[in-house]
């Protein structure tokens, strides 16, 4: 019987229970999905960024610092390999499975160059001006190659006086080459190649030449193995073109590792040790992986015998920067989203409380009767709490399960905390509800007013919110650099929203009094009565106010945040691109540039010739600077939108006293005197201005800008620019323009359009997740507003029903009675809209001040940009949604507030 009664009691008000179940299920689903999606986005972000990293960049690589090279004289080589294996073995648990076999590369070079010019028995093959060899040895190379002809190189015995035999014999160093290298260099097995510039010191003090003999040629067992990417021109020779001299081929010659020690001690060649450890991509726990990587890369690894200073390497990998930037970007996105989501999460619990209150109020009579019939508060609260759990827990489980099914990746146990909280909340709220009493009483008498306490709580909320904002601002960007979730940073927007809602509720009567004063003079009952009720019936729903305010503020905040980020991205990409379109690569002839300038979408073009390492002399000081020769007349127009573009004075294309006017970087010195540059001939320059930066043209601090045509005229050289900046007309389709330009240049070189870079950027998983998160939270908070309005109207239904019943008996029209419902919500919604807009406009300032947005917007705190047209549109949308909501909620409330007036009804 007890169970039957409990079930009957619980199911007596199904409407409220359904509302609770729906809110819990949605809340649990979102709470469960959020961290999983967040992790998925993070993994995507890592994958996306790792995808932009090559195997060679990702691998742990290191070049020896100090000490003697590792050589094979005393077995150091084996020790060095053991030391490297130890590095792998001692790596952290996440890093270790990702690491491949460590490799040692011993290069044997002259101190001044990394390749040796060779001359041999055979003449240079046709079309080749010169041949060079990179002399190197790799222990374990034989596992990766197959000999096609000849034999693997034997250890070099060294000059004859090193061994037991006397004489002055210098045997050639045996080497092997790849098939492709041998072919391109025109050598065959058995050829002896004289290594120019390599010298042996003879015991008498003179020098002797050194040569190498090709003992064999090989091919790779797997040419696509990343093993070969770690060695320069290991399989294929590099052909370098010198416009004056012709082509040079540079190949790699592999000697026996045991030859290296003797080469070191007997010749002027200097062995150098490089190390690489392949590193596979992994996205399990990027933050922990980063820590382990930093642990490995932050120390020097001693290799082999350390007696003579020893060889040490510092390992490094591009993955550290990739992970760092991915983590920063993900944290930034997560922090911004947490700021946005905190509001709806709070509103969700407020809604649950409201729905629970409704559930209790709708069963007020029966609960009061049960209590009067001897139901102890514990019994009744227990029954309500049990009912709440029975409704809440399955709904939460269902919501979380659906979320888990729909989201990728496994759910962590910690993800279920918030859904569990949502599931337990109805039980807590129901059990904690104020129990109704059968005692008849006048509502205006008896119970002491709660106004005093409410004031205290409200002042506390506002004070805590102000304190939280102050703390957050004073901590600055550190807020998002910690690895754990920062409760203060997350709770602050909710507190601020709550404080704003409290203030709005308190200030709400002020404008309403003015409205009431106007309405009082009119012959309009609904307006008069509605405004009077709005002012005098206190407690005009804090929850719907909060829900509407949060929804509005999220709409405004998201829009502003997106505008701000887009502006930041646009600014930083344009600063790096230099203009709308940037062409780099082949020499751009004047006709090509003219053809580009003639395109309908193109507003202006500017050619840029970059002459790096130009010797600039001022007085007695000579410095190497980057000389930029540009179309000075139009560069300003082309770079009109570019932040940090160099500002050029006019008339740079005419000589000043026979000297070329030049704008120099600030680092070159303000107020510098006359100077000149060496460009074949000496060109005299006259500094006319200094500029802090030349965005898009040059990196680095030492540069000078002159006019291209003037420089051509003065030097008499046909200086052909390899870069062209193009500005597009406003409204031009940058993609089409890019295609048209590509057609003109024949697809040679790279064409970067700012728009493409920008959209690439906004397509990164974090950026996409952020935008989607904005949309989801906006939709959610709109839904919450609808629910809050409906719940509030339903809660107020009995009082309104009595009022309307009285009014109808007094002869009020049905239309006026209906309009009273609108008066309950329209002023509230209008206030929430205004307050929410103000909050939404202010919140981005908090975000840019406390969240590191550098990976999104180029710098940590980009300026907040308001796009008023877009904001207007969004606000119009919000108003439309709220208006529709109000209509729907009012219709629902009207259906629920039909009551019959009964004389003597006390409740």
């Amino acid at each position, binding site marked *: 019987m007890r169970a039957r*009664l409990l079930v009957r009691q619980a199911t*007596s008000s199904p409407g409220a229970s359904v509302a609770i179940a729906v809110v819990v299920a949605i809340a649990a689903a979102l709470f469960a999905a959020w961290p999983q999606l967040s992790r998925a986005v993070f993994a995507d972000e890592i994958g996306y960024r790792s995808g932009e990293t090559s195997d060679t960049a990702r691998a742990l690589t290191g070049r020896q610092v100090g000490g003697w090279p590792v050589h094979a004289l005393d077995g150091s080589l084996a020790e060095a390999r053991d030391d490297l294996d130890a590095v792998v073995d001692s790596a952290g648990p996440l890093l270790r499975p990702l690491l491949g076999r460590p490799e040692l590369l011993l290069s044997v070079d002259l101190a001044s160059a990394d390749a040796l010019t060779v001359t041999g028995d055979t003449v240079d093959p046709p079309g080749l001006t010169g041949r060079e060899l990179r002399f190197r040895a790799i222990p374990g190379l034989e596992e990766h190659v197959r000999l096609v002809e000849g034999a693997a190189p034997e250890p070099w015995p060294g000059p004859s006086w090193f061994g037991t035999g006397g004489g002055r014999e210098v045997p050639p160093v045996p080497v092997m080459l790849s098939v492709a290298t041998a072919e391109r260099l025109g050598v065959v097995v058995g050829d002896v190649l004289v290594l120019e510039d390599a010298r042996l010191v003879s015991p008498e003090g003179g020098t002797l030449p050194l040569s190498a003999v090709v003992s064999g040629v090989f091919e790779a067992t797997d040419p696509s193995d990343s093993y070969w990417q770690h060695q320069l021109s290991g399989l294929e020779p590099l052909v370098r073109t010198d416009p004056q001299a012709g082509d040079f081929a540079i190949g790699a010659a592999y000697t026996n590792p045991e030859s290296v020690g003797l080469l070191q001690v007997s010749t002027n060649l200097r062995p150098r040790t490089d190390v690489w450890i392949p590193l596979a991509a992994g996205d399990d726990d990027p933050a922990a992986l980063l820590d382990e990587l930093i642990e490995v890369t932050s120390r020097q690894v001693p290799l082999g015998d350390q007696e003579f200073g020893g060889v040490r390497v510092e390992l490094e990998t591009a993955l550290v920067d990739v992970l760092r930037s991915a983590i920063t970007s993900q944290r930034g996105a997560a922090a911004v989203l947490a700021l946005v989501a905190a509001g709806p999460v709070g509103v969700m619990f407020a809604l649950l409380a409201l729905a629970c209150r409704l559930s209790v109020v709708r069963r007020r009579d029966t609960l009061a009767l049960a209590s*009067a019939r*001897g139901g102890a508060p514990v019994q009744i609260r227990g029954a309500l709490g049990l009912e709440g759990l029975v409704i809440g827990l399955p709904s939460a489980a269902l919501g979380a399960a659906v979320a888990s099914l729909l989201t990728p990746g496994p759910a962590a146990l910690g993800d279920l905390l918030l859904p569990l909280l949502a599931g337990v909340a109805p039980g807590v709220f129901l059990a904690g509800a104020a129990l109704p009493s*059968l*005692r008849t009483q*006048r509502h205006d*008498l008896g119970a002491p007013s709660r106004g005093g306490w409410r004031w205290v709580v409200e002042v506390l909320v506002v004070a805590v919110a102000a304190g939280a904002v102050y703390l957050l601002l004073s901590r600055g960007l550190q807020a998002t650099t910690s690895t754990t979730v920062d409760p203060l940073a997350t709770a602050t927007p909710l507190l601020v929203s709550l404080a704003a809602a409290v203030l709005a509720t308190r200030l709400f009567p002020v404008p309403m009094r003015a409205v009431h004063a106007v309405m009082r003079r009119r012959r309009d009952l609904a307006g008069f009565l509605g405004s009077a009720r709005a002012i005098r019936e206190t407690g005009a729903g804090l929850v719907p106010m909060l829900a509407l305010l949060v929804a509005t503020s999220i709409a405004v905040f998201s829009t502003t945040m997106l505008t701000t980020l887009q502006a930041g991205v646009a600014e930083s990409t344009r600063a790096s691109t230099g203009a709308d379109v940037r062409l780099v690569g082949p020499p751009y002839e004047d006709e090509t540039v003219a053809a580009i300038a003639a395109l309908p979408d193109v507003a202006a073009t500017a050619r840029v010739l970059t002459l790096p390492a130009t010797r600039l002399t001022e007085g007695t000081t000579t410095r190497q600077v980057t000389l930029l020769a540009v179309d000075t007349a139009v560069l300003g127009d082309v770079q009109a939108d570019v932040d940090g573009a160099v500002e050029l004075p006019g008339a740079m294309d005419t000589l000043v006293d026979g000297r070329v006017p030049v704008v120099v970087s600030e680092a070159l010195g303000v107020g510098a005197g006359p100077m000149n540059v060496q460009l074949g001939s000496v060109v005299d320059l006259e500094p006319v201005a200094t500029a802090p930066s030349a965005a898009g043209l040059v990196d680095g601090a030492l540069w000078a800008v002159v006019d291209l045509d003037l420089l051509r005229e003065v030097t008499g050289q046909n200086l052909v620019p390899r870069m062209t900046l193009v500005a597009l007309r406003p409204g031009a389709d940058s993609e089409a323009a890019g295609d048209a330009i590509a057609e003109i240049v024949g697809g040679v070189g790279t064409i970067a359009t700012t728009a493409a870079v920008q959209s690439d950027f906004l397509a990164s998983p974090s950026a996409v997740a952020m935008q989607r998160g904005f949309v989801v939270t906006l939709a959610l908070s709109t839904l919450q507003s609808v629910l809050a309005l409906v719940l509030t109207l339903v809660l107020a239904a009995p009082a309104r029903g009595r009022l309307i019943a009285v009014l109808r008996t007094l002869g009020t029209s049905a239309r006026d009675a209906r309009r009273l419902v609108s008066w309950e919500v329209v002023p509230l919604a209008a206030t929430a809209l205004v307050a929410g807009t103000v909050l939404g406009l202010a919140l981005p300032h908090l975000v840019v001040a406390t969240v590191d947005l550098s990976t999104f917007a180029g710098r940590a705190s980009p300026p907040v940009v308001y796009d008023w047209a877009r904001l207007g549109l969004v606000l119009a949308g919000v108003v439309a949604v709220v208006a529709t909501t109000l209509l729907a909620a009012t219709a629902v409330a009207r259906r629920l507030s039909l009551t019959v007036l009964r004389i003597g009804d006390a409740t």
Partner: protein
Amino acid sequence: MSTPTTPTTARERVAGGEIVCEDLVRIYAAEGIEVQALQGLNLHVEAGDLVAIVGASGSGKSTLLTILSGLDTPTAGRASVAGVDLLTLRGARRVAYQRSTVGFVWQQTSRNLLPYLTALENVALPMTLAGRLKGRELTERAEGLLEMLGVEHCRDKRPAAMSGGEQQRVAIAVAVANSPQVLLADEPTGELDEATSAEVLEMMRAVNAETGVTVLIVTHDPTVSEHVRRTVQIRDGRTSTEVLRRRETDEHGAERHVAEEFAVLDRVGRLQLPEEFVSALDLRHRVRLTLEDDHAGVWRDTRQDPPPARPDEEEQA
């Protein structure tokens, strides 16, 4: 205060509870306003008695009943039901009091019965809350109570499917389910027609007679007093007059109802003159009293003084 044994049959007799109220005061206070609903009410109801309290709207009778049912606490005075002091009633003792010492029937059926429970379940509810009976025993007792009140046919009906009289009978069954010592009824016939009212009142009399429970009926319906032995009238928060009825059988065997009206005299000797006495003699401000051997006389003050500051109808005997 609780019944010593667990009654399992509906008709088991209980020791009725005595109701004692002395100088009972209840003041509702809010900022700036005080409403004195009870102004020193005195009432004594013998155990097992059947008493009606009548009074106009706002006379304080509902306040009295709310206090007696343990829902409200008096501001001052003394009130006890079946030995339970109502002024200090709190927490667990209040729950125990409501479970086993009092039962009540309200005017509105919606307040007596839960609309979504059948008659049987409604009767079972207070017993389940008290937790003394379980399973078969509980169902049997509930069925017995319905049978005693003649509504066993409503066993599986919900209140909406019953007539007003049936609803109130089920309500009485609910009220006595936990064998209370006192049954309180607030306008139990307020929403019923005359015939059904009489039926319900007779049913309460029957319950009173069969179980020995003290019954206190609050009503503004003067016809109720015809069904009870003693009727107390409340005026302005005080008991004013009482009507006692008895059946007399004369020498011819004919039974007749005799009703005698008395004014209530409190501990310190105050009494209220009935309204009709006051208006008939045009008594105002003060009266003259004379003490005779076997009665006291009240005379109008013929001097017709101008009214003094304190209008008061009280007289010292």
